[in-house]
């Protein structure tokens, strides 16, 4: 028969299911909210960091700089417009600029963007082929790993593109794209893109027999890598009289996370408040235990139990509540993460997966359990001063 202090504490908690459930639920909810925020912050920051990857400047049409970054680096927003290829190439030739990667897009297949670019884009993200070859001819495409998995397209398959970035109604049936390659998963934005040549993008939008003046060719954006840090100050001045702008991904992302930060700070405050309530609940639970079970505790003293035994028993009850609530909270945050992930995947084709505990979560769990123990320790101290004789006479 196992009747150790943990078994006794567990039985006592089981004997008051509602009170126990309330304490557990409050703590689980508070810990779960903080944990979910830590997980999403980490996931979002990682995704932003991975995809910025040495892109110093993004050249694109004038408009919101943040939109320019979101559209051309992360592919989760609409582009600000088109710019002249010729003008963009002049910027790339600026002595302060080391290199540029052109991007041209405006079509999709089943919600996945078809992006015209060159091999510089692939090399930049370190993407590798899983099957087939890189695009070469016009209308050849190489699929990101997630696109291949989601659409079921394989080598040799053909498809039409649809105008717009998500819309499936305006389909270009005059041109057929052919899958010539599939990439390995890279954990970057490339996974969710269909890559092709810029010529394919131009041709799919050209009218049959139309002669296009090369000087009027347009692209959506140019990803720039600087040679000289002064490029950040100089390049914007050179674009003053054009329809172009450059945006700095690092600054725009930082500004955006600061704006998010205000919201998450508010949520974190609410979570902390809930956690404080849960600790108060544990405190009251232990206090109520002592009041309701004072005869039992006095009885245990007559059967050989020491004040320390009773103190430990109540401390373990508080510890079980705080450890159980914390564990439940961490599980809850994972469940919420799965739900959130499916939403983000559906909306933005980004995957959020975080099952491993973060260092911040370990600190959170340790703090929650420690505070739970302290919340029990104070009321449990009453057992040290329990007047056994008087308590037994009250019965």
């Amino acid at each position, binding site marked *: *028969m196992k*009747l150790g202090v943990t078994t*006794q504490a567990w039985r006592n908690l*089981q004997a008051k299911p509602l009170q126990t459930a309330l304490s557990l639920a409050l703590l689980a909810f508070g810990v779960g909210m903080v944990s979910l925020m830590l997980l999403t912050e980490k996931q979002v920051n990682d995704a932003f960091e991975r995809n910025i990857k040495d892109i110093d400047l993004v050249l694109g049409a004038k408009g919101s700089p943040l939109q320019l970054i979101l559209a051309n680096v992360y592919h989760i927003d609409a582009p600000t417009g088109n710019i002249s290829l010729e003008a963009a190439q002049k910027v790339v030739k600026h002595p302060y600029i080391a290199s540029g990667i052109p991007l041209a897009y405006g079509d999709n297949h089943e919600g996945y963007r078809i992006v015209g670019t060159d091999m510089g884009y692939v090399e930049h993200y370190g993407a590798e082929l899983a099957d087939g070859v890189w695009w070469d001819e016009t209308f050849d495409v190489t699929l990101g790993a997630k696109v291949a998995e989601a659409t079921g397209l394989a080598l040799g398959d053909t498809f039409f593109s649809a105008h717009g970035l998500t819309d499936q109604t305006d389909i270009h049936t005059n041109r057929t794209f052919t899958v010539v390659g599939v990439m390995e998963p890279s954990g970057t934005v490339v996974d969710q893109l269909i890559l092709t040549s810029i010529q394919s993008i131009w041709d799919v939008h050209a009218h049959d027999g139309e002669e296009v003046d090369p000087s009027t060719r347009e692209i959506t954006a140019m990803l720039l890598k600087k040679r000289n840090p002064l490029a950040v100050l100089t390049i914007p001045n050179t674009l003053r009289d054009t329809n172009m702008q450059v945006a700095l991904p690092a600054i725009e992302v930082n500004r955006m996370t600061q704006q998010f930060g205000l919201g998450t700070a508010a949520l974190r405050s609410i979570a902390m408040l809930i956690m404080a309530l849960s600790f108060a609940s544990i405190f009251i639970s232990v206090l109520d235990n002592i009041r309701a079970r004072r005869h039992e505790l*006095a009885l245990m003293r007559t*059967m*050989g139990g020491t004040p320390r035994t009773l103190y430990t028993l109540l401390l373990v009850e508080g510890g079980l509540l705080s450890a159980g609530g914390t564990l439940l909270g961490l599980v809850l945050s994972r469940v919420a993460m799965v739900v959130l992930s499916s939403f983000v995947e559906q909306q933005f084709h980004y995957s959020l997966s975080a099952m491993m505990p973060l260092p911040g979560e370990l600190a959170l769990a340790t703090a929650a359990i420690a505070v739970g123990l302290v919340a029990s320790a104070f009321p449990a101290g009453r057992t040290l001063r329990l007047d056994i*004789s008087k308590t*037994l006479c009250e*019965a």
Partner: protein
Amino acid sequence: MVSIEGVKFQYDAAGPVLSFPDFSCAQGDRMLLLGNSGAGKTTLLHLLCGLLTPTSGALTVGSKSLHTSTDRELDRWRGTEVGVIFQQSHFVQSLTVRENLALPHQLTTGRVPTDLESKMDDMLDRLGIGHRAGARPHELSVGEQQRASIARALLHKPKVVFADEPTSALDDESAAAVMDILDREAADATLVVVTHDQRLKDRYASCVTLNPQRP
């Protein structure tokens, strides 16, 4: 053995001083402490269990001089050498009858001996509540609770058993049955019964009458 000499007790400095008659009882004997309400029966019982410390005088129970023992020594002594049957049956409500019976062993030694369960089953069977071993205390009738309380007090073979008003709420037949059980199961122990029940006054040769305490 149980022996008290010149014992006085005061709950607080402003309160009355309670005095108790000297008496002694040899190992294995039975003794009745008889007194009406206000005679200090419960106070004396708590003094004999080491739950209260006398203001003056000497108390010896078994091998233990209670007035010179530390709290820690008394805690352990109560768990190993003493069995107490309270007037009202107290149990840990979240544990089963069986677990309640094993609790003194757990509290004293930190474990439950493997052979305890068979001893427990034998005792519960002898007391006629073997079939209630897995029940929660609140599921038992008052009579069953009292017998479970006796079983718990005697299971660890204490040297001294104190019973506080064991028959107060029982009819003649039930009272006689409970006392028979106590005599039988505590055959090797010193048994001290504290009661106001006049039906018990002739049961034992050794009887000390406690007089009402006057302020």
